[in-house]
């Protein structure tokens, strides 16, 4: 027998590690669907006689309030409005948390497509995850209804015949907010941009719109992502003398910047803040004291008309009394239209065919009214420019917005010909 203790230790620990690995893997195991082979490229058969909708969203991170569990509620409401079945098939929902990480998101999407028979993925706030999911959806020939993300590349150079970009995008926001503000006298701008791809792109898009509308950009400063303190950048904004301070950032950075701008009295001293990516859930988190006077654009506001009010109140009853954001509304609208397309096609297996049908049918629902979908996958509807009310003007919780202008659907989004999408015939 060997007297070498170290080698025996290694031998035993290897045996033990096999056992441990097996034990660790076993609970995580999932039988792959019997019909699937290991090729990624082919379209796997759908799970028999049902449609499975996957709501992939951010359940616990920065975007949990503007999307998150509310998106699942919205999708369920769309299913209920269709009667729970379509073309004789039952409808099922699964949901998952991508935690705003591209690798986790694409992993969940991959697993859903391969093993759970998911036919369509909805929501996905966070553009980096959306781009990854769009790519994956194309290679597996499923459907992706992007209600949450903002990147205009989804209908631009990264467009796909399996993806429809639903609620909004950065081009539409830049266009609506930028153009309207300049028209109303906000002709000198200073940018506070997050120092990464998204912030830079947003700043660039809005700069283009501002200058095209006759305004001037006096300068800008880039701040690091997730900066807790904006005081020095806000000081620079103040001393620039620009009428408008444009916030080319999102999520926590925007909230922090607005809060601290209120602290420094930027709005009180006559400058106005333009939020380039702000949702009603952010305004709720800020409180009207800090957010009043902020100008922003959204595709949907719960209090816009009787239709939206009715739906929103039903939504709030199922979502802790919180009113829906435009992302939630987009999920509802997208799922509804998807189910209508399936009802006509009577099959859900071929993603490209379903999307083609969705693009062929004009859209119509209580929340966005009548709309169309462009050949590059861009859903078209009106955008609305709002100003956040002062605390004295707000009569109830969630009564936050004052409408400034409606941008009609044909002007609100980029023309397909300008999108650089290879699917669009020139």
């Amino acid at each position, binding site marked *: 027998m060997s007297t070498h203790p170290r080698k025996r230790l290694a031998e035993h620990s290897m045996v033990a590690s096999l056992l441990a690995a097996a034990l660790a893997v076993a609970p995580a195991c999932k039988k792959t669907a019997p019909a699937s082979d290991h090729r990624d490229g082919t379209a796997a058969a759908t799970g028999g006689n049902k449609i499975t909708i996957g709501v992939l969203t951010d359940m616990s991170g920065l975007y949990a309030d503007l999307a998150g569990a509310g998106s699942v509620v919205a999708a369920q409401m769309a299913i209920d409005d269709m009667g729970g079945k379509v073309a004789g098939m039952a409808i099922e929902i699964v949901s998952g948390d991508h935690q705003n990480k591209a690798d986790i998101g694409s992993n969940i999407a991959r697993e859903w497509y391969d093993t759970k028979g998911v036919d369509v993925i909805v929501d996905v706030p966070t553009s980096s995850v959306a781009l990854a999911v769009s790519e994956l959806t194309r290679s597996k020939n499923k459907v992706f209804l992007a209600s949450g993300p903002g990147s205009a590349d989804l209908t631009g150079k990264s467009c796909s015949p399996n993806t429809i970009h639903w609620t909004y995008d950065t081009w539409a926001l830049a266009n609506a907010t930028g153009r309207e503000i300049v028209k109303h006298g906000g002709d000198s701008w200073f940018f506070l941009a997050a120092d990464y791809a998204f912030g830079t792109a947003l700043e660039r898009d809005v700069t283009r719109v501002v200058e095209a509308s006759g305004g001037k950009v006096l300068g800008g400063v880039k701040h690091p992502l*997730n*900066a807790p303190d904006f005081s020095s950048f806000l000081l620079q904004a103040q001393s620039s003398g620009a009428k408008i301070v444009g916030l080319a950032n999102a999520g926590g950075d925007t*909230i922090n910047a607005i809060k601290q701008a209120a602290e420094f*009295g930027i709005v009180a*001293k006559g400058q106005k803040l333009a939020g380039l990516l702000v949702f009603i859930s952010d305004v709720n988190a800020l*409180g009207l004291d*800090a957010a009043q006077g902020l100008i922003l654009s959204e595709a949907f506001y719960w209090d816009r008309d009787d239709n939206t009010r009715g739906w929103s109140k039903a939504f709030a009853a199922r979502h802790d009394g919180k009113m829906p954001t435009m992302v939630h509304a987009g999920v509802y609208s997208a799922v509804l239209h998807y189910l209508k397309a399936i009802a006509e096609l009577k099959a859900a297996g071929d993603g490209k065919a379903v999307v083609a049908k969705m693009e062929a049918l004009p859209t119509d629902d209580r929340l966005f009214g009548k709309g169309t979908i462009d050949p590059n996958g861009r859903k078209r509807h009106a955008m609305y420019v709002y100003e956040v009310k002062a605390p004295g003007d707000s009569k109830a919780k969630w009564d936050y917005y004052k409408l400034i202008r409606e941008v009609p659907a044909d002007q609100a989004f980029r023309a397909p010909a300008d999108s650089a999408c290879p699917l669009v015939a020139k």
Partner: protein
Amino acid sequence: MPGEISAQALFGQLLLGLINGSFYALLSLGLAIIFGLLNVINFAHGALYTLGAFIGWAVLHYAGIGYWPALIVAPLAVGALGIVVERTLLQRLYRLDPLYNLLLTFGLALIIQGLLQTRFGSSGEPYEIPALLKGVKDLGFMVLPVYRGWVTVVSLVVCLTTWFVTERTKLGSYLRAATENPALVQAFGINVPRMVTMTYGLGVALAAFAGVLAAPIYRVSPGMGAEMIIVVFAVVVIGGMGSIMGSIVTGFALGLIEALTKVFYPAASSTVVFALMAVVLLVRPAGLFGKAT
């Protein structure tokens, strides 16, 4: 445009830097105290700072207790938690390599942050500036929000008081002696383990105090500590890991340096502290104010 700035505006930026520095100083003070006496690298410091801010929010939200009492309540609560943690968990690991304590406190930080995240989500809760401190004061070269001025003043007071207690009083001398030779100090009849426990409680109470101070201006969110803690570690390492004055001075100094970087080269403002830390560690490993071991 970055790089071009008037003297007036520069003063304004430096003042803001000083204000940020006061948070760094408060937090690194707590870390330095804990490391100095316990030889524990308290990775949970950021999470306890966050917890302090949340307790401040919670007592307002659920019990109507406002900002001023919260400044006492939150540190007391977190300090008590710290005492429990030290007694039940940290004490077991003193005889081992200090890296184990770092790992344990890292685990604690994850637990606290994860629980807060599960309960509150990530976008955070609003917390208003107390009425007495609202508004701005025109200083000529800039407008200074009153609250920020208050933060700087109170941090300075707390920092200097703590320094005074540890360096110039009898209690402080016991603490310092216990760092160097706990057995001997114990032999003199001083209850060293209890002193150690109280010190940990004090250190984390300071973190919670900073948390309440931060609540009205930074966002009260589960992630607020995580972003801070790495920078604060760098501050403590630069200042000298056991040196109280070192952390105070470095904290304020770093605020100033960051402010200058934001003006002249904003892209580097997040990394300048790490570059400095690497340089200091290579040139003067005990830190600028630390004692060479």
